[in-house]
């Protein structure tokens, strides 16, 4: 018993830096077994770092033959090693799930002998869960680059979401920090999965009773701050992957300097949390606000502004487009105003069909008036009370721009 405790500790510890652990995007009823899946995410607890715990996030093993410099599990590292058997994984998942500790399983692994032997074991775990235990809850399986397509196909039928981590978005960084990984070996399974999902969607339209292939889609994760890539490169890579592979999410994980190496930031240097936060905000703008990466950032200053959120920063750079009249402009234009979100833009559009939206209404509709007022007119009137110069607005909004800003933008899916 104590042995299982120890194994779970090691393998959870080893998995915790992977941040892509949301569960959602899929609705499935229980078909006479245990579990179902909800299209909205369910958080079961929040860890001491304020992150939502939804899935049991664990490695099959942390015994690795690869030697990625940034990774605590790399083969040259001295660390305790452990593996779980498929049966153990299945049992823990079921018992946690029955007690409503978790929403499902997020299973990944180090490379024990080679990608395929490890992924065979992962497949076995999923088969046990789905077939022997009739588990209908959420499963996210992480595919190791280099896994054969036949195995990916089998896993995709059993898992709700599959992901291949790109980790570092350039060939040169991979070569430097993850010498056994090749960009092409990461992108080709992504492409394969994307094609399988499309093919499966077509089949399911034609025939009844065909199982979904990765019904909740695929995602990936990038490590921020371990290598030299700037935000321009990162955001453009994300945009391309959304476009090309229709990823559901790209996750950004601030690198925790846990390893000493001349190739990496020194241990004890603080993880770039603020930068990570800004990337999530920019990513959000790409996905829901109709922004393009090169509007948010350009090569002349290739990092996102840490003091201002990317939308505010864009707006201040583009003051010539403001102020805009909220009773007239399109939904897409409303979305570009700092302080107006998807919901409040929608509310404005709904309400103004009946009667003009007045300035006094804005706060009640969920608009952050304090920010928005500099960028809008309401029934023709400007309420900003100061000139439309970016610097004046910036000063009015953020008198102490360096004041500690709270990070609240965790992965809310």
């Amino acid at each position, binding site marked *: *018993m104590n042995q*299982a*405790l120890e194994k*779970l*500790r090691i393998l*959870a*510890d080893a998995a*915790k*830096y992977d941040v892509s652990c949301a569960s959602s995007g899929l609705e499935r*009823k*229980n078909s*006479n*077994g*245990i*579990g*179902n899946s*909800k299209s*909205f995410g*369910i*958080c*079961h*607890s*929040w*860890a*001491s*770092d*304020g*992150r*939502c*715990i*939804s899935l*049991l*996030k664990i490695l099959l093993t942390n015994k690795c033959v690869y030697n990625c410099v940034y990774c605590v599990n790399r083969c040259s590292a001295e660390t305790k090693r452990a593996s779980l058997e498929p049966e153990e994984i299945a049992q*823990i998942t079921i*018992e*946690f799930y*029955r*007690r*409503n*500790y978790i*929403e499902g399983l997020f299973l990944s692994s180090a490379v024990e002998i080679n990608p395929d032997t490890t992924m065979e074991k992962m497949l076995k775990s999923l088969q046990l869960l789905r077939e022997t235990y009739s588990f209908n*809850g959420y499963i996210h399986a992480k595919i190791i680059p280099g896994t054969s397509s036949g195995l990916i196909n089998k896993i995709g039928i059993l898992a709700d979401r599959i992901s291949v981590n790109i980790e570092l978005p350039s060939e040169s960084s991979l070569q430097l920090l993850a010498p056994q990984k090749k960009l092409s070996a990461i992108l080709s399974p992504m492409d394969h999965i994307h094609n399988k999902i499309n093919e499966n969607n077509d089949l399911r339209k034609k025939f009844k009773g065909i199982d979904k292939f990765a019904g909740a889609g695929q995602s990936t994760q990038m490590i921020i701050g371990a290598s030299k890539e700037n935000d321009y490169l990162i955001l453009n890579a994300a945009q391309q992957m959304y476009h090309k592979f229709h990823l559901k999410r790209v996750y950004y994980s601030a690198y*925790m300097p846990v390893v000493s190496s001349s190739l990496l930031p020194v241990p004890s240097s*603080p*993880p770039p*949390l603020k930068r990570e936060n800004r990337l999530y905000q920019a990513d959000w703008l790409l996905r829901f606000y109709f922004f393009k990466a090169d509007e948010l950032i350009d090569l002349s200053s290739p990092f996102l502004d840490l003091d201002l959120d990317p939308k505010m920063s864009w707006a201040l750079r583009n003051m010539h487009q403001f102020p805009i009249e909220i009773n007239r402009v399109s939904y897409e234009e409303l979305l570009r105003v700092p302080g107006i979100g998807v919901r409040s833009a929608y*509310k404005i559009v*709904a*309400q103004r069909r*009946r009667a003009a939206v*007045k300035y*006094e*209404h804005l706060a*009640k*509709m969920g608009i952050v008036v304090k920010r928005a007022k500099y960028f809008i007119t309401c029934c023709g009137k400007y309420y900003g009370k100061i000139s439309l110069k970016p610097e004046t607005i910036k000063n009015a909004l953020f008198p102490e721009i360096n004041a500690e800003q*709270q*990070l*609240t933008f*965790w992965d809310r899916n």
Partner: protein
Amino acid sequence: MVDYLYDGSFEGLLTCVYLHYYEEPASGVFLESQYQSDLLRPYKCVVTSLTCSDKVYFAIRKKISPLALQNTYYLYLSNHIHKEMLVLEYLKKGFKIGISIDDQHADPLIHDIHILSKKVLAESHRFLGLIRFTDTGVFLYSAIQPDHNILILLGDHFSDRLKNEKFIIHDQRRSKALISSDGIWYITDFDSKTDFPLQKKEEYYRSLWKNYYNHIGIGERKNPKLQAQYMPRRYWKNLTEI
């Protein structure tokens, strides 16, 4: 004008709304068991009528909107001390102006009602995650102390998810329980003793879970403020892991 006293059921509350329109306008609606009578204020105890409440139910849906019906129900489940009055005022306005009632964000009453209704829904959603079952060996048991009366909103979710199990979710604040067996559930008064001796297997999985919980947080990113913001401390008492 008269104060209507109802039995605490949703149907009872809707019956009062019916009487307000078809017998005598209501000066107020109150829970019968908590009513403080006052010589100068006339009151009537209402006998819940399914015929009347059905009429109101369908009228809300048709003449106002399904959303308004949902809001009415969430208001009814809320812990607001004057929730009956809120329901009455909301429906009076709703029957007057129809479907656009819920676009009146500038109306303070509607604004407050939306906030309250959202709170109830949000709490029930939160509890989909925050329920912790103990396996007693015979059934699964969970104790909760929610702000609002949300048990009924949990029934379908858990009875589908745990279709082949028997379980009890016990609202200790209201002495009620949701009881489910093989996918069929109901709510009943419940006040039994609930400290079951912990089985070996149960202890084992609890310790695994606590151990997991303690290790999954990233030390360098500790953020107790954020943690408490998402998971308010008043809920911690019933969580296994904290």
